[in-house]
Structure formats: structure tokens, C-alpha cells
């Protein structure tokens, strides 16, 4: 992606300029689109991998300790270091960025999903068993629905932090809006461009979070009833 920037900007390097936004709307939209698509793909992949992992850790208690410990250690590893480990093998590009952010999102979702599953009351599990549910029926009809708030919290946290994390992708040239921010810094500290990138980043995180919150309300009508009563 190349950034053709127009410097007919307002004089005096202001923090925000409509002129800049108008003149570079194509570039800005391209960066926003890349950022949003990287985030959406990352969270989707992470959720698809994390849920089976969390269920495995829930079913086989002996797996829970190692999985939680491993996610803890991986979480301590700084994102730039993770880029450093993966880039020489995956090359410079979107695949590297996607791998790193998927890994972080995965950790957050696994931990929260596991916490959500672990707090399903044992009595409910026994009642489900007594009603004749098998392992899978119990999982899909009883345990996962009850763990849904925890899972959703994990997905929301993962989404918001992924939006912020994608910007680190500038190190391999694919940072979405981070690219905008970084280019603004390098091109004579162009404040309007840095600010536009930042504001869009925060707005993107906010919008995605609200969408997930709304989806959660639709998926879990029983929680809505409880909070309003």
C-alpha cells in the first residue's frame, strides 16, 4: 500500500485539519479498511481456535494448568519480540501481523472462556446430567450458554486490544492505521495525520466493542431481563 500524501495542508501544522482528511480520504479509508479487516479476521480466527482449547481445558482438568501457565508466559512476551520471532520465517507482510495479533487475542479469549466455564455451578451440571444430557448435549445446551458472558468479555477485550496492537504492525509495513500514524511522524511530524490515525483507531475499537455488546444482548436475553428487574 502506498501513501500518496497531499501537503496542501493548513499552515502551522494543526492537530486536526479537514483539508487533510478531504485530500487524503482514499489513503485514510484504505488504512481504515485494512485495520478493520485485520482485526476482524484475527478475532474470528482466535475465537475459533480458543473455544475448543478452553473446552478441552475444561473437560480434562490436567490440561487446564499447562494451558493457563503457557498463556501467561506468552502474554508476558512483548508484541515487538513476537514480531521479531515470526517475521524472519513468515516474511514481511500481513501474515506476520495476523499471526501475532491472533496469538494475543487467543490468549485473552482462552482465559476468559475458561473462567466462564469454570464458574458454571456444579449443581446445574449435575441437574443437566440427571436430565439425561450427554457430554456434548450438556456442553452446547447448558455449559456454553452459561459461560457466554465470560466468553463475550474475552472476545470484547481481545477485539479492543487487537485494534491497538495492529498498529505495531508498522514494523513489517502492515500496521493499518498505525501506518498512517507512523508516516505522519516521519514526514515532518505531520500532526493532523497522526491525530486522524489515532482518533480513527480509538473510534474503531469503540464501534467494534459496541457491536459486540449489542450482539451479546441479543444472544443473552436472560441477562437483560435480570439487569432491568
Amino acid at each position, binding site marked *: 500500500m502506498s501513501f500518496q500524501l497531499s501537503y496542501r495542508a493548513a499552515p502551522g501544522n494543526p492537530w486536526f485539519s479537514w483539508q487533510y482528511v478531504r485530500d487524503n480520504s482514499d489513503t485514510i479509508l484504505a488504512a481504515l479498511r485494512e485495520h478493520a479487516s485485520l482485526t476482524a479476521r484475527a478475532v474470528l480466527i482466535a475465537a475459533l481456535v480458543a473455544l475448543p482449547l478452553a473446552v478441552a481445558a475444561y473437560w480434562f482438568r490436567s490440561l487446564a494448568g499447562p494451558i493457563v501457565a503457557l498463556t501467561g508466559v506468552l502474554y508476558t512476551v512483548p508484541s515487538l*519480540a513476537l514480531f*521479531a*520471532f515470526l517475521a524472519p520465517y513468515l516474511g514481511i507482510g500481513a501474515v506476520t501481523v495476523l499471526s501475532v495479533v491472533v496469538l494475543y487475542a487467543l490468549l485473552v479469549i482462552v482465559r476468559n472462556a475458561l473462567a466462564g466455564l469454570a464458574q458454571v455451578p456444579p449443581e446445574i451440571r449435575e441437574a443437566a446430567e440427571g436430565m439425561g444430557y450427554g457430554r456434548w448435549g450438556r456442553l452446547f445446551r447448558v455449559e456454553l450458554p452459561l459461560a457466554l458472558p465470560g466468553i463475550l468479555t474475552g472476545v470484547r477485550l481481545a477485539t479492543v486490544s487487537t485494534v491497538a496492537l495492529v498498529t505495531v504492525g508498522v514494523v513489517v509495513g502492515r500496521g493499518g492505521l498505525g501506518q498512517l500514524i*507512523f508516516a505522519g511522524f516521519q514526514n515532518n511530524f505531520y500532526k493532523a495525520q497522526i491525530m486522524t490515525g*489515532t482518533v480513527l483507531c480509538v473510534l474503531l475499537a469503540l464501534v467494534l466493542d459496541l457491536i459486540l455488546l449489542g450482539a451479546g444482548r441479543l444472544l443473552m436475553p436472560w441477562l437483560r431481563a435480570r439487569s432491568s428487574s
Partner: protein
Amino acid sequence: MNPVGQAVLWLNDPLNWTNPGGVLDRLGEHLTMSAAAVLLGCLVAWPLGLWLGHTGRGGGLVVLVSNVTLAVPTLALLTILPLTFLGFGRPAVVVALAVFAVPPLLANAYTGVRQVDPEARDAARGMGLSGGQVLRRVELPLAVPYLAAGFRTAAVQVIATAALASFVDGGGLGQIIRAGFGLDIAAGGGQIIAGGVLVAGLAVLAEGVLALVERVVTPRALRPAVRPAQRRAADATAGN
């Protein structure tokens, strides 16, 4: 030669450690700016968190602060702050890092005071202690496990984030990785991985050492409370 072999080679070259801008220089920069940032974060977040917890107000503010900082990219703060009155150089980087240290410190100081047994607070009141004395002599000591857990989370996070200071040439170990990327991936692959090992190693080491510190500063009577404190700290700042 594969990148890992190159990385071992790079790490084995003594000049890469002792040269100006070598590993030792960068490590020093990394640690001094992390320490300054954590110190600054503590100075701001602890008094505020303790006071908010003491008065029982501002729980919403604490949550808001952690949510907002979660959404703001580190890169944005690192590039914006040098353009403000802080000017280019170390102070701007330290302030940017400190901003990310505040949420865990604040949230833990707040919950640390809030979780104090109300009966202990009442008893202290009944003994004639004033509000300030209750905070200093009762709530603060009982909040120590939480403060320690928050300190550990914040410090590890700052050390991890400090690697990104290299984007604005702020120094630190991240600079080694950035320089490696600057060399092109085929030539710099070894250096990139070596830098990654150093950055990750430092973060994991800091985590281990601070876990030990956390155990030591927690009075024995409060130790059983350490586990829930950690869990709550993780909840408060999950997604860092």
C-alpha cells in the same frame, strides 16, 4: 544459515554487547526509562487510587481509565507526546509509558482499599482514628497485597511496552530489533531474533523477579489473599 543460527552468532559476538548502542547500552536505557515510567505512574495512580477507594467514589472513573487506555495504541501516544510541550527525547517516552502503567496501579489501589473488611474500618473509627489515620494505619497496610500485584503487572507491562519506544528512536532494547528490520530481513534476521530474545527474556525475567518481590513485601498474614489479588489484577487489566 538459518535465522536462529544467525541469532546465536549475533549474541555470541562480544562487540554487539559492548559497542556504543550495543546490548548493554540499550539494556541500560530500557531499564532507566521503564523505572522512571513506573515511578511516575505510581506517583500519580497510587494516591489517587487510595483516595478514591477511601472515599468509595470514582469506581466508574477507574474502569473508564482502564478501558480508554486499552483502546489507545501505544504507537499513537509515543508519536503524539513528543509534539506537545514535552518535546522530543526521553521525557515524552517516559510519560507515554507511564500512561500505560496507570490503569493496573489505579485499579489495584482502588480495589485494595475497597476490599478492606468494613468491620476493621468501623473498629478503627470507633477507636477514634480520623479519616486520614484510617487510610494510613488500617486501609493502606491491608491493601499492600493489591498494591504489590498492581506494581508487578504495571512494571512488566511497561518493560514490554518500552520496546516500542524504538519506533520514535527513544532507545531501549527494541532498537536492536528495529535496526535488524532496517537491514532487510535476509541480512538482519539473526539480529531481529536476537533482539526478540533479549526483549522477551527481560520481560519474563522481570515477571519472575517481581513475583518474588510481591511475595516478600506481602505480610505473612495476608498471603492467602495474594492469589485472589492477582486474579483480580488480571481481570482489571486483562488485555494489556
